[in-house]
C-alpha cells in the first residue's frame, strides 16, 4: 500500500509591522516549511507623494521634502536635488560651499552607513554593535546640528550655496571627530565582521552576480559589493571629488562568493574609512573666506525651459533627479522624478529570495539597506 503525504505551502505575511523590514515594507512569503519558495514585496506604505508636492511648490521649498525622502542621508538628498537645479540654471557654486557640501555629505554618509551595518547586525541577531555604532552617530549629529541647526533633517544645502556658515571651531571639532571615529569603527569591525557566526550567516547568502546587479539597477555599495568598480564620485566626478584621494572598496568574495551579503556589508565599513579620508582632506583644503550666499538665486522667475537628469552618489547609490521645467515665469518645476537607489535595489528581492530560508530573507533585506522613505517617496 502506498502512503502519500500531502504538504501544503504556507503563505506568511511579513510586515508592514515587523522588526526587520526596516520600516513599513510588506513581504508575502510562500514557504515550504522554512524554505521560501517565492517572495513578493508590497510597497507604498510610506508613499508620501513627493513628486506631487514638487509640482506645487517652488524650487527652494522642495528641499525640505527631499530631506524626508531618504531620512538617513538627508544631506546627500539635498545635494542631489541642488545639483540638478544648478545644472538646469547653470549655476557654478563657490569653492567654499563645495567644500562644506563635501564635508557634511561625507559625514552624513558615515551616519547612514552606521545605521546600515548596525541594523544589519541587529537583523542577524547582534545587538551590541548597533548600539556602539549609534554612539558615534550621535557625535555626527552634534556636528551637523551645529552646522545646520537640525538634528536629522537639515535643509542645509541650498540651490547655489549652503544655508549657514561654519566657523573654525566647527572645523576643529570635525577634525577631532575624525580621529576619534577610527578606533570606534575598528571596535565594531572586530566585534562583528569576522565573527564566525556572522560570516556563516552572511557569506554565500543572497549572491548577486555582476550581470544581475547591473540589470536590476544596483548602485552604490550594493553594486560595488557585486564586484563592479563603479562610484559616481570617481567615474562621473561632481563637485570637488576630483581633488581628493580616496579608494573605492570593491567586493572580492573574501568569505564566500562575490556579491554575497557579507561583501555588501564590508563595503560599507570600508567606505566609512574612505569617507573619513575625504573629510580630512577637505578640512585641510577649505578656507573660511568667502560668501556662502553669493550664487544663491534671488528668485526663480527666469527659469530656462528644458529638462535635466542629474545623478550623484548617496550612501545608497545613484540618486537621479529628473527635472522638467516649463521655463518662463513658472517658479515651480513641471515634473520632478526621483530615481531612488533603494527602490531599484529592492526590486531584486523577488529574484534572489527563491529557495533561501526565512532567516536568509532577513539577511538579504538587511544587506541591501533600504530606506522605505526613499523607496516609496
Amino acid at each position, binding site marked *: 500500500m502506498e502512503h502519500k503525504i500531502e504538504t501544503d505551502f504556507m503563505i506568511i505575511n511579513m510586515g508592514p509591522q515587523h522588526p526587520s523590514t526596516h520600516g513599513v515594507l510588506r513581504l508575502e512569503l510562500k514557504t515550504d516549511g522554512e524554505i521560501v519558495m517565492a517572495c513578493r514585496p508590497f*510597497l*507604498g506604505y510610506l*508613499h508620501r*507623494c513627493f*513628486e*506631487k508636492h514638487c*509640482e*506645487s511648490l517652488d524650487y527652494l521649498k522642495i528641499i525640505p521634502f527631499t530631506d524626508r525622502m531618504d531620512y538617513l542621508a538627508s544631506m546627500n538628498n539635498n545635494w542631489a536635488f541642488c545639483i540638478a537645479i544648478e*545644472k*538646469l540654471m*547653470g549655476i557654478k557654486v563657490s569653492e567654499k560651499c563645495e567644500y562644506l557640501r563635501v564635508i557634511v555629505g561625507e559625514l552624513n554618509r558615515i551616519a547612514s552607513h552606521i545605521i546600515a551595518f548596525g541594523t544589519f547586525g541587529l537583523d542577524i541577531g547582534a545587538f551590541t554593535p548597533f548600539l556602539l555604532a549609534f554612539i558615534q552617530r550621535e557625535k555626527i549629529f552634534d556636528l551637523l546640528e551645529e552646522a545646520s541647526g537640525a538634528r536629522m533633517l537639515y535643509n542645509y544645502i541650498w540651490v547655489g550655496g549652503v544655508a549657514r556658515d561654519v566657523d573654525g571651531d566647527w572645523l576643529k571639532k570635525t577634525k577631532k571627530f575624525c580621529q576619534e571615529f577610527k578606533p570606534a569603527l575598528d571596535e565594531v569591525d572586530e566585534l562583528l565582521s569576522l565573527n564566525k557566526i556572522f560570516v556563516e550567516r552572511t557569506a554565500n547568502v543572497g549572491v548577486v552576480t555582476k550581470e*544581475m546587479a*547591473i*540589470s*536590476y*539597477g544596483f548602485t552604490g555599495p550594493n553594486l560595488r559589493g557585486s564586484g*563592479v568598480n*563603479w562610484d559616481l564620485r570617481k*567615474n562621473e566626478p561632481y563637485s570637488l571629488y576630483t581633488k581628493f584621494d580616496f579608494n573605492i572598496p570593491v567586493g572580492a568574495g573574501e568569505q564566500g562568493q562575490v556579491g554575497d551579503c557579507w561583501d555588501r556589508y564590508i563595503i560599507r565599513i570600508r567606505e566609512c574609512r574612505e569617507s573619513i579620508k575625504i573629510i580630512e582632506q577637505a578640512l585641510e583644503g577649505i578656507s573660511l573666506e568667502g560668501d556662502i550666499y553669493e550664487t544663491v538665486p534671488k528668485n526663480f522667475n527666469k527659469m*530656462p*525651459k*528644458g*529638462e*535635466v*537628469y542629474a*545623478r550623484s552618489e548617496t550612501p545608497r547609490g*545613484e540618486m*537621479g533627479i*529628473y527635472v*522638467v*521645467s516649463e*521655463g518662463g515665469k513658472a517658479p515651480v518645476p*513641471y*515634473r520632478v*522624478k526621483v*530615481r531612488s537607489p533603494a*527602490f*531599484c535595489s*529592492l*526590486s*531584486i528581492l523577488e*529574484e534572489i529570495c527563491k529557495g533561501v530560508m526565512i532567516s536568509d530573507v532577513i539577511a538579504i533585506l538587511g544587506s541591501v539597506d533600504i530606506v522605505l522613505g526613499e523607496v*516609496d517617496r
Partner: protein
Amino acid sequence: MTPEEIFDKLKEKFGEGKILRLTLPSQNGFDVCDPFIDVEPLAMTELADFLKHDKDLAFDQCCCISGVDLKDDLQVVYHLFSMSKLHKICIKATAKRDNPIVGTTAHTWGVANWLERETWDMFGIKFKDHPDHRRILLEEDWEGFPLRKDYKFPRFWRGMEVTPEEEEGTYGTQD
C-alpha cells in the same frame, strides 16, 4: 558614441517609422536638455532589446524610467547608460492620452519591471506584455492616477478622509 551616431544606428536598424527624431540641447525650443531620441511607443520592446545587446551600444544600465504628463499626451522617458562604453542617451516614447500603451522593457532590464509599474501607478500608462502589471505604491482600489495634471483628490478612501472638508476642491489640481 555620440548621440548622433546612436541615432543613426537606430534609424538604420528600425527605420524612420519607429525612430522619430533626435533633439540636441538648445533645439526644438529647449534651453537645457540631455540629447534625446523620440521613438514610437510600441517599438520600445524590441528597441530596448537592441539597445542592450548590440555590441556598440551596450546600454546595460537603465537609470530611470519616468512618466511625464504633456497635457495632450503622456510620455515615458528612459535614461540609459552604458557602463562599458561610458555613453548615455535619453529615449522618449510619447503615447496618446486616451489610450496610452507603451511596449514594455521589463524583459530587458530587471529594474524596468518596477519602474514601469510605478509609471502605470502614477500616470496610467499601460505597458504591453508587462509580466506583472499591477499598481505598486497605491492600493489596487485607488481611483485615478495621481501624477496626471488633471487628477482630482478623492474626498474619501475606504471611509477615511483624504481631503479635509474645508479644503475640498481647492487642492490637487494645478491651474
